[in-house]
């Protein structure tokens, strides 16, 4: 083969690898998912749902990529941005922040959105969630559903991001005032050790907990499994995790779909703003999967079924708290790092 054959081949391959950009048409939506990829039944899937909804409603194209490692983020961000074919590029996950900080400066005219982390650039909208408020609602439910009045929580790492969940949760348990208490919080120390997660949950159950809340990524899957094995209730996080077993009675949900959807719409109708967008229960960015407005998403779009009924009085209590938080009558505490 002659040398120019290779050259042609190389150019062809290069174009195949680039995200498809349609010149001449209107600008599209770019979505750079987290390393977990589609199928994670969590952040990535739900972000995709939001982006897809925006794409269908606005009648514009959506291109998405699934990077396999953190090192790949920067390349995808640059490819998307340098093509000039995207009105907004949405980046999912806190670990894209370092790369985005560089790329956003390289392409100051390009609009970006980042989920779950802050990048301090004028062209980046940082979408943050008040996890403490969802924790509060979940805490109310936990306080009512525990019979032994002892609740255990398992965290991935003792960092502000996770403490934010727990501070709200403990306050919710107190607010419900059913005599239930949260045992000292335990941490796995890593996100990917379900074996340790399970052992920690077992040690909590051995001390009389009959409800376990896991906020620990893959380590948390082990904690949820421990609850299943011992026949006690458990609660999930980020997205509805009730598909993992009937014993999981609720999950705190970060509605990344809504956040992504609203940000994309803002980008296309010209109201996009850079900076920190921090929303909570009032705006519907945070909730629990058992709320009436959320249940259809989880049960119909994702086909996750809930088995354990939640008594009406508990749901009413949660609704009451939700309303009070929205109106500002209840102020849910936060860790000092988040201005609490």
């Amino acid at each position: 083969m002659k040398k120019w054959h290779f050259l042609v081949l190389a150019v062809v391959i290069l174009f195949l690898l680039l995200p498809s950009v349609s010149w001449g048409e209107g600008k599209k939506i770019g979505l750079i998912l987290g390393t977990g990829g589609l199928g994670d039944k969590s952040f990535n899937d739900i972000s995709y749902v939001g982006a897809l909804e925006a794409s269908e409603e606005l009648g514009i194209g959506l291109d998405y990529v699934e990077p396999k490692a953190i090192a790949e983020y920067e390349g995808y961000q640059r490819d998307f941005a340098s093509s000039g074919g995207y009105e907004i590029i949405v980046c999912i996950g806190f670990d894209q922040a370092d790369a985005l900080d560089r790329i956003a400066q390289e392409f100051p005219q390009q609009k970006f959105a980042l989920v779950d982390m802050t990048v301090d650039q004028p062209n980046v909208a940082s979408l943050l969630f008040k996890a403490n408020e969802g924790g509060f609602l979940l805490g109310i439910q936990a306080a009512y559903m525990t019979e032994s009045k002892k609740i255990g929580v398992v965290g991935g790492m003792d960092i502000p991001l996770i403490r934010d969940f727990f501070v709200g949760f403990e306050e919710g348990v107190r607010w419900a005032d059913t005599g239930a208490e949260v045992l000292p919080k335990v941490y796995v120390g890593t996100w990917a050790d379900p074996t340790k997660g399970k052992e920690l949950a077992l040690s909590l159950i051995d001390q009389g907990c009959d409800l376990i809340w896991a906020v620990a990524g893959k380590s948390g899957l082990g904690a949820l499994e421990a609850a299943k094995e011992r026949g006690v209730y458990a609660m999930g996080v980020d997205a509805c995790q009730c598909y993992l077993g009937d014993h999981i009675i609720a999950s705190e949900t970060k509605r990344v779909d809504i956040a992504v959807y609203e940000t994309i719409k803002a980008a296309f109708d010209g109201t996009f703003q850079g900076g920190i967008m921090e929303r909570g229960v009032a705006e519907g960015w945070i909730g629990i999967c058992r709320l009436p407005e959320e249940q259809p998403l989880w049960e119909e779009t994702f086909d996750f079924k809930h088995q354990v009924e939640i008594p009406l009085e508990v749901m009413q209590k949660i609704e009451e708290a939700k309303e009070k938080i929205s109106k500002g009558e209840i102020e849910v505490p936060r860790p000092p790092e988040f201005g609490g």
Partner: protein
Amino acid sequence: MEIGALFSLSILQATIRMATPLTFAALGGMFCERAGVINIGLEGIMLHSAFWAVLATYFSGSPGVGLLAGILSGMALGAVLALFTVKYYADQIVIGTGINIFGLGFSAFVCQRVWGSRGASEAVAGLPSLSLPFLDRIPYLGPILNNHSILVYLSFLAFIFAHYFLFYTSWGLRLRAVGENPQSADTAGINVHLYKMVFVILGSTLAGLGGVFLSLAHLNFFAWGMTNGRGFIALAAMIFGKWTPIGCFLASLLFGFADALQMRIQTLGILPPQIILLLPYLITILVLAGLVGKATPPSDYKPYVKK
């Protein structure tokens, strides 16, 4: 929680559960090193077996098939390590590291294809636990030892068998000779390469069982990276145990206990979790630096080239 709960039954049961994967891997590493091959790939071998065990169970519906797949996976990677390091004199650390990286990449890739998610598999049927009525008759010890997974009992058998084999059989004697002085062993008519091959494969298979314990006995699913450094902790346990089966077992128990203790101290809520989480690592450093004394490896780990 009361301080007294630290010394409860559950902490000792947890110790055994946490120690089992380490025991398997430490024994596995020991057999490899006794044969003169450093197995730095224990971590990847464990992860691989953990993955194959779940995959085979998922498709066959039988955890027995999963166990077999985990064993075969350990044997296969052991064969790779043996082939490259014994036959082709490749660098042991390079091949071992390659196995570790391969374990991470391969499991993520297939996980994505089969379950549509890189993070974790779906739940499968796990290996059964064993209830041995005669154990209950032993006071104190009985309840601690009873009702564990069959792999826990297999790990007990493995270390007892390994001890007998290594120090009370002529094969064990030859194996030790192959590691310590391959030249002399060869002169004495021992097939050095064959011994090295067989025991590297056997050792890797044992490490694989440790992985199967994690995914199919302790849990019933696979999560990416779920071994979480246990292969390397097992290497430490092996050195701490001075390359003897009993030493490996006791060191694994110590590390398992440190972990179980750490978890229960956390529930006391008296110390910041960051400090408590240090505990197992602190113990590792302390025992390796102070208590263990001089650790003399059983081999110089050089590839044996027949003259």
